[in-house]
């Protein structure tokens, strides 16, 4: 079972939590100056203790682009990592949501992704792996600057904690700009997901810490947790404020979205994102009872282009074939429980 099809805390407003720790090994230059032999050496050295701890090693240099992209869609690696040409590998333990990218921008990116709001758990898991590797490796570190990273924006703790939030009411009410503005003042950033071109159709945003130096891991997590709690409250208030005709229109839109998801013959991924947001909102508002967050979480990964293509017995040859396949996959996931 992977992180994206499990039940979780605060599902009404939070989709997932991710914590990553950036580490580099002394004695090697950073990624942009690292030679192939050095990269291979790091991959080999790091793999041994992690494989012994039950991680699966995936050599990205041998993967097809579609396979590599499907790891991006499952949030185990960054899009940049999937595209790298130099040697790079992933060590993955799916049950715990733990993924270590080796030779990405930093030598090691130790991360844990969890469904729902789970900052402490994600940090604890990532930190456990980090401690294990700290026994074997001399991490680049100075007392003044903390863990040394390729990019100075990650110096210090090397930790980036991010929470993927689902904020349909704040999005429709036009509050996202001012929210993002407030958060930037306290060292947090907001990034829209699935936002390019389609606007904020998915109503999904990643909230994360910007600052990593001069603040402890615990302080960062506490600050983020406080902000998330407040955003959840604002989103709930904005949801409660929808009433009268607006609520009628919203209900109509949500139920139509469910109908389309269940019965469409073809579905593009951009249409899916819009309908996903409406149906997810419908569950939160109590308008839809026979679709679960876990089913939607599964879909959000499994009907993305690369993962969808991989799940097919024969690779869909055209866009129409792929959109048909997506519609079928959606139907089968939604009907599995109903």
């Amino acid at each position: 079972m992977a992180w994206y099809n499990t039940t979780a805390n605060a599902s009404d407003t939070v989709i997932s939590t991710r914590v990553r720790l950036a580490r580099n090994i002394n004695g090697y230059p950073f990624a942009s100056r690292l030679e192939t032999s050095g990269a291979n050496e790091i991959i080999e050295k790091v793999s041994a203790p992690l494989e012994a701890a039950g991680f699966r090693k995936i050599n990205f240099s041998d993967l097809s682009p579609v396979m590599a992209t499907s790891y991006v869609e499952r949030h185990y690696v960054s899009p940049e990592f999937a595209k790298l040409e130099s040697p790079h590998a992933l060590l993955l333990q799916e049950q715990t949501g733990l993924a270590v990218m080796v030779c990405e921008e930093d030598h090691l990116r130790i991360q844990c992704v969890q469904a729902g709001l789970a900052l402490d758990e994600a940090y604890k898991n990532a930190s456990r792996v980090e401690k294990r590797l700290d026994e074997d490796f001399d991490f680049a570190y100075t007392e003044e600057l903390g863990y040394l990273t390729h990019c100075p924006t990650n110096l210090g703790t090397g930790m980036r904690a991010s929470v993927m939030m689902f904020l349909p009411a704040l999005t429709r009410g036009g509050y996202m700009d001012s929210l993002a503005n407030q958060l930037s003042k306290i060292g947090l950033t907001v990034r829209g997901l699935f936002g390019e071109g389609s606007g904020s159709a998915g109503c999904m945003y990643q909230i994360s810490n910007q600052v990593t130096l001069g603040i402890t891991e615990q302080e960062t997590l506490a600050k983020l947790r406080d902000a998330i709690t407040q955003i959840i409250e604002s989103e709930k208030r904005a949801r409660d404020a929808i009433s009268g005709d607006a609520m009628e229109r919203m209900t109509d839109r949500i139920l139509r979205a469910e109908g389309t998801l269940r019965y469409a013959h073809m579905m593009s991924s951009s249409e899916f994102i819009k309908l996903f947001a409406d149906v997810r909102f419908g569950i939160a508002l109590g308008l839809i009872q026979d679709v679960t967050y876990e089913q939607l979480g599964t879909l959000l990964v499994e009907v993305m282009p690369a993962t969808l293509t991989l799940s097919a017995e024969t690779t869909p040859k055209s866009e129409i074939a792929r959109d048909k396949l997506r519609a079928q996959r959606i139907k089968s996931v939604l009907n599995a429980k109903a």
Partner: protein
Amino acid sequence: MLCEQCKKRTATVFYNENINGKVRSFSLCGECAAKMREKGDIREITSMSGSFADPFSQLHDEFFGGFFGIPLQKTLTAQKKCPTCSMTFAEISKSGRVGCPDCYTAFQSELRPTLRSIHGTTAHTGAVPARHRAKQERNERLKSLKKQLGDAISQENYEQAAALRDEIRTLQAEKEKEGN
């Protein structure tokens, strides 16, 4: 700062866009930002800290370009090299990334203003690797002993001062033996 569109309300949205090197930036109030987005003049805001996206290269260009009025590439600092990986400061400024862990020592003073503007501080307070912990604890112990020694001397408590001095000497000898 006032919104550059209406010139009435305070600017709260700072929009930076870099499409294939074509840079545009606006300081807007929430209302004008919404209007411009509706008209399609600016794109959906996907990252609010647009100005943070690449603070490093941006700041250095501003610092060197604006402050000294000389293009960065021609300054002496720009040509300074890291003794370990031979990355120059010009390359660091351009890419926004250093070449190896030693670059942080080699370019310590050059990097400090940038670190301060990114993080607001230049001193780490988080986790410590196991092999540094003993060292760090010793440094903290030394700091505290030196303070106690000062106090003991000012209170004319020479017996205690002598004991403290001996402990400091032992720790310092250990430190020198390990080379730092």
